């Protein structure tokens, strides 16, 4: 980087060169804002996955309990309930009326769900939602209601409170994170533009947008400009300052991003590249690169709190599915992209040791109409299912299955205001105090607080500070101790599986040699008792092992004579 003018300018403006970490910690303690940050900033990260165009939630999360109603509303595009491309039953432990399926190309989501890493909220929208792409997205991004028009977004306002001095600032109000300077942009948009979600009131956006840190860095190397230090008091001057700030921010953060990116190194996880089935469009997974980049930056130690990734192509008025098979086509490819990319992302985070601090939520400007149209597509609708991914998501399905016999102009009705989800995420995951969350979402009346802040959807697992997340999995997949144990002549092995499928239950001796195959067949989901005859086996220690899809577990069995 040729230019250091930004630093020069700052050191003139403020006596202390803060960016280089030269400030003693004791000074920080005197500053209320900084002290608050040290105490409360938990460093957790939120990724928002924006599904651009309005996702057809009903073909992503299928209301199994109302299948015939579902089918009749959209016979030309309905995901079938039988055959080898039927919907995937998500969770058989749910009561019948809550049972749902997911799109057959969402095996990754099913796998994550079984591991307790997926939460689904039905019927998310806002009151008086309308079918406009632009208004819908603006409302969700700005964090208001249908009657509001804010110039800023909820992420921008949150980050503005946490890092008020971004992108520059003065010595009394610095963006510090603990003892180290907050060197990173508080928000990062993968791509090239800056969305409303990151904008704060009357100021510079709280994010940087970058698609490739390396290319970006190299690009900046070729630019050398003098900083402008005085701006006329005019609209021209304001635009000039806006551009100058962006220019300076690019240089400072461009360098740092490259450093973090290099430090992060290559991933050990393979990300999906293409939708494996032939379809006319959208074959290449547009999310893989974006998620891979985020995982890498996190591995490299980036302190950015919010990431925004986007996938387009959801405005499926026509040819959402192939005419010959509603499980294939454009929307199927999009479902696959999301499911497979998120699965790889979670695996990457786990392998990098960053899984504990990252949560991902999906958003879309609206759901699509429950009734399909004649062009194998769907028009703009209202409520949509939100998915949350991550180790500390409260796993399960929330909000209640939409009632397909009670539509509003052919659309799913709102059951949950999106802010009931977001306030939970901000308060319980991002660690923003109650009053601050109220501020961020501009909940200025008791009525609004009661509706959106006190009435949260518990999407965050409150155990994340101390606990473990195994419980959910154990409720759905478990291999219990055999009874009786020690066993003589005969014993019973009890296990529970949440998915129907091929199951193997085998017995091994302590040398690891297979001595008996007790089950090797297709079993229905649910609880199973397997009676095992152990006569004729030498007394001693044995291991029995259950294999059901990706789930495997082993336990000990003592055989006595």
């Amino acid at each position, binding site marked *: 980087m040729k230019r250091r003018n930004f630093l020069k300018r700052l050191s003139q403006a403020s006596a202390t060169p803060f960016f280089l970490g030269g400030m003693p910690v004791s000074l920080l303690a005197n500053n209320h804002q900084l002290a608050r940050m040290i105490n409360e900033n938990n460093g957790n990260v939120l990724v928002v996955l924006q599904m651009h165009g309005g996702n057809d939630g009903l073909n992503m999360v299928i209301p199994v309990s109302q299948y015939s109603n579902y089918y009749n509303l959209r016979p030309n595009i309905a995901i079938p309930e039988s055959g080898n491309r039927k919907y995937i039953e998500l969770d058989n432990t749910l009561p019948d009326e809550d049972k749902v399926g997911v799109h057959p190309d969402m095996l990754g989501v099913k796998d994550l769900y079984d591991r307790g890493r997926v939460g689904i909220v039905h019927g998310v929208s806002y009151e008086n939602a309308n079918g406009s792409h632009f208004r819908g997205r603006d409302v969700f991004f700005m964090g208001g209601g249908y*009657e509001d028009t804010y110039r800023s977004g909820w992420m921008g306002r949150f980050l503005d409170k946490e890092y008020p001095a971004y992108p520059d600032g003065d010595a009394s109000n610095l963006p510090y994170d603990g003892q180290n300077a907050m060197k990173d942009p508080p928000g990062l948009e993968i791509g090239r533009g800056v969305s409303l979600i990151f904008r704060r009131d009357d100021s510079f956006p709280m994010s940087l947008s*970058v698609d490739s840190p390396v290319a970006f860095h190299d690009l900046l190397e070729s630019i050398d400009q003098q900083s402008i230090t005085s701006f006329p008091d005019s609209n021209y001057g304001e635009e000039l300052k806006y551009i100058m700030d962006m220019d300076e921010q690019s240089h400072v953060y461009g360098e740092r991003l490259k450093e973090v990116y290099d430090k992060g190194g290559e991933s050990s996880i393979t990300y999906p590249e293409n939708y494996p089935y032939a379809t006319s469009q959208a074959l290449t997974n547009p999310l893989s690169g974006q998620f891979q980049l985020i995982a890498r930056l996190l591995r490299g130690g980036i302190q950015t709190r919010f990431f925004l990734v986007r996938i387009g192509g959801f405005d499926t008025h026509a040819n959402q599915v192939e005419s010959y098979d509603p499980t294939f086509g454009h929307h199927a490819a999009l479902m696959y992209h999301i499911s497979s990319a998120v699965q790889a992302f979670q695996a990457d985070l786990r392998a990098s040791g960053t899984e504990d601090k990252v949560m991902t939520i999906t958003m879309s400007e609206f759901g699509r109409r429950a009734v399909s149209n004649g062009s194998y597509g769907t*028009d703009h609708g209202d409520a949509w299912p939100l998915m949350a991914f991550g180790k500390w998501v409260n796993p399960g399905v929330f909000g209640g299955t939409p009632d397909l016999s009670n539509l509003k*102009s052919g659309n799913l009705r709102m059951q949950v205001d999106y802010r009931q989800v977001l306030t939970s995420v901000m308060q319980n995951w991002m660690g923003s105090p109650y009053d601050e969350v109220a501020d961020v979402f501009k909940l200025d009346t008791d009525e609004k607080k009661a509706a959106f802040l006190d009435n949260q959807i518990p999407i965050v697992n409150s155990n994340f500070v101390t606990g473990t997340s195994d419980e959910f999995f154990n409720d759905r997949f478990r291999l219990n101790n055999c009874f009786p144990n020690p066993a003589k002549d005969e014993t019973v092995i009890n296990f529970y599986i949440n998915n129907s499928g091929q199951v193997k239950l085998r017995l091994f001796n302590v040398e690891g040699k297979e001595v008996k195959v007790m089950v090797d067949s297709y079993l229905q989901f649910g609880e199973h008792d397997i009676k095992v005859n152990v006569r004729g086996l030498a007394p001693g220690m044995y291991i029995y092992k259950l294999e059901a899809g990706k789930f495997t577990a082993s336990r000990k069995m003592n055989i006595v004579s």
Partner: protein
Amino acid sequence: MASLLPFNGTLDKRLAGHLLRRATFGPGKKDIDQFTGLTPAQAVAQLLQEQELPTPPVNPLSGEPLINPEEGIYKMTSDGDAVDIESNFIYWWMAQMNNSGNNITEKMVYFLHTHFTTIKSRIEEPTALYYQIALFRHYALGDFKTLCLKMCKDNAMLRHLDGIQNVKDNPQENFGRELLELYSIGKGNQIDSEEVDGESYANYTTYTEQDVKAATKVLSGWDEDTTFETIDPDTGLSTGKMKASAQLMTTQHDVSTKTFSSAFQNRQIGPTLVENNSTTVEDAEAELAEMIDMIFEQEATAKYICRKLYRFFVYYEITDEIEQDIITPLAQTLIANDYVLKPVLEELLTSSHFYDSDDNETNNNIVGAIIKSPIELVTGISKFFNMAMPDPETEAADLEATYAPIYEEMIYQGLELYEPFEVAGYSAYHQAPVYNRNWISANYLAYRYVFSEYILAKENEDGESKTFGWLDVIEFVENNQNVTNPADAEQLVTDLVTYMFPEEITDERYDYFLNTVLLDGLTSVMWDLEWSTYQSSGDDTAVRTQIEALITAIIQSPEFQLM
């Protein structure tokens, strides 16, 4: 108070440059000089002069016309030649912008494209794009209402928003919704839901869900014409047609009576004749025309169009004061002239408001306050430097080599022409609250800056000398229409910064361009000497390097991003 009253004065250099940057694709020094001293009325009259229609695209290999309806060539095809007809069309249009001179027409064509933006990958038919642009040009200064009617039947639009799939038994709302939301009346404030026939709708003050559904029915039953042989007699341009029998009875048009909401005074529109669930094509067309009349009878429509014009030509923020003093009276002018655009442009571009002279502070509101779009940036550069660019008719073979890299550069600057991310078009023209600031992100800005590398590179990516698209800075400064005296370093910098930037720069900035960049720490006397050395020896290496550095620094400045 903001005012549309005419600006009583003559244009100085600053205001002449202001007018030309806003109303055209950018002036050169001689254009600004030519407009300096004119009254706004004289200047705007020149800009509004009617233009000859450009020659349609030709096959870059053979030079033969790709479109010529009079000769029976309705559709652009490559005819077996290895020609990308679609890209060729886009480069042709970029060349029209480059050649648009001191006239507003092509800028209005671009404005209309940003308003009725279509996405080429949804259309995949360059001929449809060509006729659409031709339609924009036909109505560039003309009747916006009729243009909007024609857009409902436009082949590109029929594909872009699925109009061809909108049939009576399966309404497809995509176009009907955007017609109201994006193209005509726009969104007012959202109001509470209303119950209609037992169903509840979320509504705007300007239109409701009921109107989206009713409009969709009025628009049902249209089809594209992939032969492009259906010619609209009003424009002489190819258009879509109705799905109809040989007897001209509709086959897919919804013949029910369509009832609009109270936003449209509960208007009912329907065919006069219905037989066997069908009506005449004439009746269906009349319904459409009646609906367009109905939409354009609303004052909100005129205001919506005026706000778009204001944001495009003047400034992105519309305060209550601007709404009251500028938008409302401008909308009255638009209505009084039956939606003909020319008088409105005339009024706006000659107004004291446009020249920031409607109050005592004449340099705080308007001039320099718009961020150039990438197309205005790159075309402005080639026009300012009067760079050699291929003629789209006689040098079509060179269009691709010259314009393909520029098109690519613009993508990195945030404008993928004909391929915006969403159907609303490029976000800078519709995304509140910051509108044109959407052109500036860390990435976009950096790529705008490095565009200087493209024009200063003498060779293309393959290492061949460029015929077009190269700025020979020596040739440029030696032409006294461009620079008064290149041997005078101070004069050289003054000439460039005065004509390239919208506002005067501070002494500190001037000092930077002169002493740090051009002279690189030496003195003006040394520059004079360097220049003489070049003139006697013919070796321009030293002066060329420094002038290129100066032009790079100017293009890579925040000031240059503004107009």
